């Protein structure tokens, strides 16, 4: 990737939820990043940090409170005609976390996968649709025989394959995978990750891979964005981020992952963060991480750290690296 082409630009994206009694939950607060064509951007963070909300806002399942999501030069958040909206949605698809609840139990696999095709390509005959579905099933490692079965007849890994086939059905360019492997067993996770990588190579897909399992994210992503309490705190190439994490939160997160190697585990010094993630309804002033940060300074309580490029393509929002 010498000449990187931006597929998606997320600019100052905000998504606030009104939770009643005049309270506002800032789930995603001023997030900006780019996703390049053909790459995998990993989005990691603990539960409740807003990573799923960010994904869902990008794909317009939620309307953004403010900010822009520019897809291939086109702002997705402005009002559009129904036709334009449809063609935009055809380009972006999503894979969900829970393979069981994301498939309609009363539809056959054929119906599930063909539904999207029918929506976007009305002129197709049912025979053609069927043929398309068979092809898709094959490409995700299932076969024709599975087409007339119902979701409950499949294992979790197989259901996730069906979910992937459904996402691929309308030939999208961009796929958001929201914790696609979190609900699966270890030995099945690798199958699904390999499948996703294979499909990316074959079809030139761009992924936004949302997960909390950092070792898997590192494996699949070209670049990684780390989120904490609604904001992105660090963004870098995946190797760079792991070798040289700058933000204290990233450092703690990396050191918290247990490594499946007893010799390393015995000698490893852990940074153990104190306390829990603060209530997002009432985030701390200044830097959001300061209440748990081992390196917090006076300035952190007062000023929100700026998003800055510390070295090439390595962004961080922390006062420690103020130039």
């Amino acid at each position, binding site marked *: 990737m010498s000449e990187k082409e931006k597929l998606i630009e997320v600019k100052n994206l905000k998504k606030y939820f009104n939770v009643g009694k005049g309270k506002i939950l800032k789930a995603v607060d001023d997030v900006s990043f780019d996703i390049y064509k053909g790459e995998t951007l990993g989005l990691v963070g*603990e*539960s409740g940090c807003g990573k799923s909300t960010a994904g869902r806002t990008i794909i317009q399942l939620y309307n953004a409170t403010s900010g822009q999501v520019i897809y291939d030069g086109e702002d997705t958040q402005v009002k559009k005609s129904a036709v334009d909206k449809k063609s935009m949605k055809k380009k972006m698809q999503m894979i969900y976390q829970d393979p069981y609840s994301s498939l309609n139990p009363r539809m056959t696999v054929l119906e599930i996968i063909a539904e999207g095709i029918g929506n976007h390509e009305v002129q197709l005959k049912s025979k053609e649709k069927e043929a398309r579905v068979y092809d898709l099933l094959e490409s995700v490692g299932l076969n024709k025989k599975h087409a007339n079965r119902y979701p409950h007849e499949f*294992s979790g*890994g*197989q259901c996730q394959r069906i979910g992937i086939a459904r996402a691929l059905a309308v030939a999208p360019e961009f796929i958001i995978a929201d914790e696609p492997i979190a609900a699966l*067993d*270890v*030995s*099945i*996770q*690798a*199958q699904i*990750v*390999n499948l996703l990588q294979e499909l990316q190579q074959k079809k030139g897909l761009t992924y936004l891979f949302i997960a*909390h399992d*950092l*070792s*898997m994210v*590192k*494996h699949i992503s070209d670049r990684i964005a780390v989120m904490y309490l609604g904001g992105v705190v660090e963004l870098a190439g*995946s*190797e760079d981020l*792991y070798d040289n994490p700058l933000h204290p939160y990233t450092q*703690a*997160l*990396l*050191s*918290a*992952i*247990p*490594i*499946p*190697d*007893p*010799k*390393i*585990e015995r000698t490893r010094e*852990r940074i*153990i*963060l104190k306390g*829990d*993630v603060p209530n997002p309804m009432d985030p701390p002033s200044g830097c959001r991480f300061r209440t748990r940060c081992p390196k917090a300074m006076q300035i952190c309580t007062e000023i929100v750290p700026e998003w800055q490029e510390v070295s090439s393509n390595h962004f961080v929002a922390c006062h420690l690296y103020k130039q």
Partner: protein
Amino acid sequence: MEDTILKIDNLHVSFKTHNDGETKAVRGVSFELKKGETLAIVGESGSGKSVTAKSLMRLLPKQNSMIKDGQVFYEGKDLLKYSIKEMQKIRGSEISMVFQDPMTSLNPTMTIGKQIMEGLRKHQAFRKKELFKKAADLLELVGIPSPMERMKDYPHQFSGGMRQRVVIAMALACNPKVLLADEPTTALDVTIQAQILDLMKDLQKKTGTAIIIITHDLGVVASMAQRVAVMYAGEIIETGTVDEIFYEPKHPYTCGLLLSMPKLHAARSTKLIPIPGIPPDLGQLPEGCPFAARCPYVMKVCHSFSPSKTEVSETHSVSCWLEDERAPQVEWIDGAGGSIDERKRKVD
């Protein structure tokens, strides 16, 4: 051995299913737990690890489960022969358990303080004031700030990590000799997981409790355990010290698990090697080795006869036909790739 505190011998547990079917969830599990050590039981969902733990606590529902065979010796006495009353004396005071989901294992309608005191009152004679003090001390021990005030709070006022701390405090209230932790950190975030694991290690040092930790996360195993038992389809297929399991795995399933995990330090280009297929249905187990259908080194014999246990070393044993002397020579290819050697076996 003298220092063995818990010994499970040939445990068989089945569940009744409709149409007089039977799901053999645990099939002939045997292991020992020594005083003060940590044993990890690893396996995928449905491999029988939780059922093993629950059956030695006698917590399985009576209507549909049967402990068909086997013994559970706790300090030399068979727990499976205990009456319900005798068992209640053991639970919580001698052996206690931490469950996976801290929200559902706490009573939402009782204050945290009451729940901790409940166990204490049952097993130990305390005056009311002492009881309150002791419960607050326990909360402090597991790192909950201002314990005196938090005693009056309800579970929903605690975060996930704090709830799990409370559950651990409850489990340790009566200084049990054995702690069964069934996926204690699976529902938690990594930074909170690190806190909880750290806490468990710390408490073990202080109290000398022996821990059985049930998990599917090999990272957790590496950081917590001294010995490991790998379960597959209701059987323990390999046991050994952590080093033996991680650096010299003998069973193809153990190797497969290790290879399918991404390594933090490995280059991105290394491909994961998944285990193909899915675990067998415990209601209709195939004959022979249960892993045969997914095993890359499968031989004819694997489909018809179950492998017997082979002792590799004093601490390491494995159930696999490849260890049989008549089996063809297998070749281990050591490749560069992270700290766990990329291992592949090839049958000539």
